[in-house]
C-alpha cells in the first residue's frame, strides 16, 4: 500500500517567461495539472516541498495529494519533470490527475540484488541497457522498484524483461525479449594512436569524382588494349 504525500499548490495566472523566472528565483517551481476530471490548470508549488515529496522510496512515482488553494486535494502523480541543463534544478513539473480505481502506466526503476560471479571473479561490468520498466497497475499498487537477481550471472550473460518477476496485479508493458542488463567484459586500456597514423577525412564529392576518374581510366585502358589486339 502506497502512502500519499501531501503538497500544496497555488494557481498561476501570469504565463510570461519573466514571471516564471521570478517564481523560480523566489523558491517556487511552475507546473501544470491535467487529467480526466480536470481542465488544464497552470500552478506553482514550493520547490523544497516538491523535492521532499519525490525523495520518498517511491521517488517520482509517489502518489501526491495536491491541494490547490482552499479546494479539496486532488490525487495526482508526476508525469514529467524538466531540469535546467547545467544546474540540474527542477524548472517545471507536470502533475496528472488519476482515478484510484483505474490503472495507470508508470515507469518503475530496476533494483539489482545479489552478487554476480562474473563481477567478483572475472571483473566484468554490469551494463544497464534499460533502467526503468513500464508497468500498468492500480495507483495503490505501484511498486517502489522491480528487483532483478544477478547472482549466477557470468560474463556475456544477460537478463531480459521476461526474467523479471513481479508480485501482485502488475502488468509489464515492455517487450519480454528486451534485454535489461548484460554483464560485459572489462574495458581494456587503449594507448593513444600516433598523430601521423590519423587518416585525413575524405570529402564526399571528391571521392565520387575520383572513383569516376579511375573507372574512366580503366575503361580507356581496356578499349586501348582491344584496339591494339585488332591491329
Amino acid at each position, binding site marked *: 500500500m502506497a502512502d500519499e504525500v501531501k503538497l500544496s499548490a497555488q494557481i498561476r495566472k501570469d504565463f510570461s517567461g519573466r514571471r516564471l523566472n521570478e517564481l523560480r528565483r523566489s523558491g517556487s517551481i511552475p507546473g501544470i495539472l491535467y487529467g480526466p476530471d480536470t481542465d488544464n490548470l497552470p500552478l506553482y508549488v514550493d520547490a523544497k516541498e516538491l523535492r521532499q515529496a519525490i525523495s520518498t522510496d517511491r521517488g517520482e512515482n509517489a502518489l501526491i495529494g495536491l491541494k490547490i488553494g482552499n479546494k479539496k486535494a486532488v490525487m495526482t502523480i508526476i508525469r514529467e519533470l524538466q531540469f535546467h*541543463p547545467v544546474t540540474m534544478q527542477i524548472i517545471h513539473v507536470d502533475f496528472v490527475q488519476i482515478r484510484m480505481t483505474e490503472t495507470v502506466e508508470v515507469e518503475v526503476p530496476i533494483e539489482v540484488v545479489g552478487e554476480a560471479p562474473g563481477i567478483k571473479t572475472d571483473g566484468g561490468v554490469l551494463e544497464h541497457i534499460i533502467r526503468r520498466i513500464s508497468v500498468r497497475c492500480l495507483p495503490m499498487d505501484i511498486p517502489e522498484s522491480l528487483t532483478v537477481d544477478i547472482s549466477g550471472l557470468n560474463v556475456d550473460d544477460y537478463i531480459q524483461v521476461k526474467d523479471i518477476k513481479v508480485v501482485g496485479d502488475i502488468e509489464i508493458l515492455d517487450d519480454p525479449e528486451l534485454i535489461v542488463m548484460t554483464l560485459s567484459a572489462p574495458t581494456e586500456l587503449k594507448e593513444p594512436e600516433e598523430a601521423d597514423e590519423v587518416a585525413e577525412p575524405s570529402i564526399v564529392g571528391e571521392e565520387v569524382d575520383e572513383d569516376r576518374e579511375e573507372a574512366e581510366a580503366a575503361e580507356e585502358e581496356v578499349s586501348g588494349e582491344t584496339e591494339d589486339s585488332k591491329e
Partner: protein
Amino acid sequence: MRPRKVKYRVKHRGRMTGKTIRGSRVNFGQYALKAVEPAWITERQIEAARVAITRYMKRGGKVWIRIFPDHPVTKQPSETRMGKGKGSVEYYAARVKPGRILFELEGLEEDEAKNAMKRAAAKLPMKCRFAVRGRYQ
C-alpha cells in the same frame, strides 16, 4: 578521433550561444562529467581525458564518450602574408556548450568515479561538474 568522411573540407567558426538541450542528461552510465562553460575541445584533449579515466579505472568499469570532434579548425602557416585563401585543416574539435555531458562511467563506486572524472576534467579546457544519474537539485 576524427570524421572518416566530410562534405566540405572547412567550416565557418560559428557562434556558441546558449546552453545545450540535447545531450544534457546522463543516458548510458551512472556517473558523468558535465561541461559548465562553452569550449572547443580538440581531438587530442578528448583522447587525453579518456586515457586519464581508463588509467585510473585500471580494469573494470565502462566509459562512454558523448562528444565527437567533427569541426575542422584551420590555421595559416607562420610568416604568411594576408590573403591567399583559408589555411589548411590543423585539427578537429568538438564544440561544447554548457550543460553537455562529455563522458559517462559505469561499474565504479561514486568516490572512484568522481576521482576519475576529476582527472579527466584536468585535461579539458573548461570548468566541468560531476553528475550522477537521477540526482537533481
